[in-house]
């Protein structure tokens, strides 16, 4: 027993020893790979430059003064005149700053004592030798510097150069004095401008990211998606519905846009439509979607309602385009009048532009979603109401069609990316393969059984999000610089995209960890999925969502300071430029600005979090 114990402990000791050895080996290799070398650090050359850079960094290029320069000349003879007559030298004017040279004449190479009086206290300035009789001569030799004490007095020695003249020559002391109030340097102003750009870049990226990540986070939550199941008929039909609906929606909304163009130049037409369309839309929707109905309406009534909703939505899109037109017209009209607030007009203009671009996309997505869910419902009912054999036949047809559509679209994407140029490879082959896979699925799936569509959507979303998340925002910025040009807009897009994907992950994990009880209770009342999310999920996830959004804003501010390294705008551009120009004092200003912004962001977000979460 005892032997067993001791051998076990010996074995443990050996294991521990091996682990320590392995650790040593790993770290030794790490040292060699990362080239750890303190020899270099100790070398004099390195230390010198390190000291120099550190000292410049400690003196940020932040404020400057207006300078007043004063020149004090004092004559002397080099060498001494033959008769030693120094009477040509006038006595110094002792009411202002003056210099006394002893002796007043000397041979070249000899040292004279220079003493200054009545200078401004505690300043430095150069002291030079001016050859020739003209004291204003710009040729100056030698360069020492003087430093006055608290009383404005200095004493220094000066070695006379080899310039011989019979005329009196001069020693010149130049002093410059700061006058007036301190003011910011150009560098400080640039830094301010860029740091504002940086903060707003982060703000916009966070806002855009949050808005888009919010709906996506529910699709990426396992607990919500797990129960989403549909029979194959419904899945196939809604897969067909998406592209058809998107195409139709884009086409229709685009047509509305084209129809709107001649009307949108007149500001009154804009105004009337912008005011009228919401009312029409509201009343149409109020009529067509009664808040509560105990009895199901007749079929003809439902058809009329669908029609009314459809027309109401068309009117709403018309209203969107008119709103964009109105914003454009107003912004063009008032830009001049606003003066320094012209950026408000620009904002309005850009927003109207964005509205004009996203409205057809919105229409495409809405129509795609509506058609897909409508066809999905029809599929569901078909699968429920018909016999197994008939459902199987229907499944063969639609599953093949859906497979062909999906693979055909993938083929089109491949063609666009790689420009293969053979229609049989990029169209017919994928369509055939897709159709075959669809047929196989229809053959093997139980006709009435449900498929885990929710989990498929969940997995696809997760995969895309994780793949995009692994690309750093800095790398994304390079792509966007190519897409939209160098500047803060590219940086904002890159940060925005990265914000979406990381927030989707963080958000959806919060959704996955909510309490299931309320979810169950709301489902039990007969609420549908959308209502369950709104009433049971969202109230539970709001506090963590706010907290993650703030955290992300924090990250975005930090990221936006370096996104300029690759041309993404913001302060990083300035910082990198100054470092490359070895202008460390300017770079130091930017570093301080970054530190202040990051620290205050940290403080603000912690205060807000404490207050609202």
């Amino acid at each position, binding site marked *: 027993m005892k032997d067993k114990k001791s051998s076990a402990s010996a074995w443990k000791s050996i294991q521990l020893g091996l682990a320590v050895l392995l650790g040593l080996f790993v770290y030794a290799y790490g040292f060699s790979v990362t080239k750890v070398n303190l020899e270099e650090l100790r070398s004099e050359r390195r230390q010198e430059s390190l000291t120099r850079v550190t000292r410049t960094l400690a003196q940020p290029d932040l404020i400057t003064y207006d300078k007043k320069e004063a020149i004090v000349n004092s004559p002397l003879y080099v060498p001494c005149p033959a008769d030693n007559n120094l009477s040509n030298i006038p006595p110094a004017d002792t009411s202002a700053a003056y210099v006394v040279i002893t002796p007043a004449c000397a041979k070249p190479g000899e040292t004279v004592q220079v003493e200054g009086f009545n200078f401004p206290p505690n300043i430095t300035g150069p002291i030079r030798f001016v050859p020739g009789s003209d004291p204003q001569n710009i040729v100056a030799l030698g360069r020492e510097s003087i430093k006055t004490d608290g009383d404005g007095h200095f004493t220094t020695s000066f070695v006379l150069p080899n310039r011989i003249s019979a005329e009196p020559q001069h020693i010149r002391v130049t002093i410059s004095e700061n006058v007036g109030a301190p003011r910011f340097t150009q560098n400080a102003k640039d830094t301010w401008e860029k740091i504002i750009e940086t903060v707003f870049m982060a703000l916009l990226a966070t806002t855009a990211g949050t808005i888009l990540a919010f709906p996506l986070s529910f699709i990426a939550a396992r607990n919500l998606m797990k129960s989403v199941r549909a029979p194959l008929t419904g899945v196939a039909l809604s897969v067909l519905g998406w592209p058809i609906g998107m195409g139709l929606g884009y086409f229709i909304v685009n047509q509305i846009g084209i129809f709107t163009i001649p009307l949108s130049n007149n500001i009154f037409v804009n105004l009337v439509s912008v005011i009228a369309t919401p009312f029409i839309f509201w009343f149409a929707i109020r009529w067509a979607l009664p*808040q509560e109905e105990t009895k199901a309406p007749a079929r003809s009534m439902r058809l009329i309602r669908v029609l009314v909703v459809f027309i109401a939505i068309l009117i709403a899109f018309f209203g969107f385009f008119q709103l964009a037109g109105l914003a454009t017209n107003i912004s063009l009209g008032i830009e001049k009048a606003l003066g320094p607030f012209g950026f408000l007009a620009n904002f309005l203009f850009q927003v109207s532009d964005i509205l004009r671009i996203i409205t057809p996309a919105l229409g495409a997505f809405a129509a795609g979603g509506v058609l897909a869910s409508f066809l999905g*419902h029809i599929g569901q009912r078909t699968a429920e109401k018909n016999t197994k054999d008939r459902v199987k036949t229907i499944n063969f047809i639609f599953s093949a069609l859906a497979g062909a559509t999906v693979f055909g679209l993938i083929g089109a994407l491949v063609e666009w990316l790689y420009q293969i140029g053979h229609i049989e490879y990029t169209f017919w082959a994928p369509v055939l393969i897709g159709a075959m896979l669809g047929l196989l699925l229809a053959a093997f799936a139980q006709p009435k059984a449900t498929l885990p569509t929710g989990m498929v959507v969940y997995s696809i979303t997760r995969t895309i999000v994780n793949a995009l998340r692994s690309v750093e925002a800095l790398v994304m910025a390079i792509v966007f610089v190519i897409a939209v040009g160098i500047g803060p807009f590219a940086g904002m897009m890159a940060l925005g995209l990265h914000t979406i994907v990381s927030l989707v992950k963080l958000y959806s994990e919060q959704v996955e960890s909510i309490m299931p009880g309320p979810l169950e209770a*709301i*489902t039990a009342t*007969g*609420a549908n999925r959308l209502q369950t999310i709104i*009433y049971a999920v969202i109230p*539970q996830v709001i*506090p963590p969502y706010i907290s993650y959004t703030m955290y992300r804003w924090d990250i975005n501010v930090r990221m936006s300071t370096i996104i300029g390294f690759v041309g993404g705008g913001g302060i990083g551009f300035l910082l990198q430029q100054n470092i490359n120009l070895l202008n460390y004092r300017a770079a130091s200003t930017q570093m301080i600005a970054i530190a202040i912004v990051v620290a205050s962001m940290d403080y603000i977000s912690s205060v807000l979090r404490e207050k609202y979460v």
Partner: protein
Amino acid sequence: MLQVKNLTKIYDGGVKALDNVSFEVPKGQFLAVIGLSGSGKSTLLRCINRLVDPTEGQILWDGEDITAASPEEMRRIRRKIGMVFQHFNLVHRSKVITNVLAGRLGYVNPAWSLLNRFPKEDMEKAIKQLERVGIADKADQRADELSGGQQQRVGIARALMQDPNMILADEPVASLDPVLAHSIMKHLEEINKKDGVTVLCSLHFLDLVHRYADRVIALNQGQLVFEGFPRDINDQKFKDIYGRDAERVG
């Protein structure tokens, strides 16, 4: 009339929660479901409104097959079945009135839910239900600021908002003290007797069963081991239901 026929539920892990359970509940009855923890009471109640999908068997309610209902039909059936939970299952961060209004979600048009809008009649109805359970003054408080007994009243008000024909109560008083338990049970009794709502209520304490239930069914390891009147539970039956080593308390 609710008819449960040969109901079996086997969970994904292979656990047989219900084993061939059959019984009937006439309209307007107060049925107690008793049994040990893990005997399948919760699963049984959740099968009736399909929060849990049964593996086999049939549930007929007034002749309509709940087990075969499509999602759309299920929504219509569920809104007529109120449910009350042991842990109340309120949405903590929402207001009491919002929690009560949620009972109306099966009736309102989902499009309007996006905007968090309820018809005016529903708002009035919600206040009326809160008055009925005696906490109308708490309507604007957050649900988690209420005590346990008050939270369960909100739960009942939410179920009442559904204009239910049946209420499923899953151990509604198990996390409340005896005094509160009686007050909650009295609310359920009143709903049962006054409004004629069928109540299926799982309970732990036999004195509550004797006091409130018209009839009792008992489950043991997923099997129906007793069906009858509360007074019929003698010592022998008690041991059948709760196991040989169990002792009666209360």
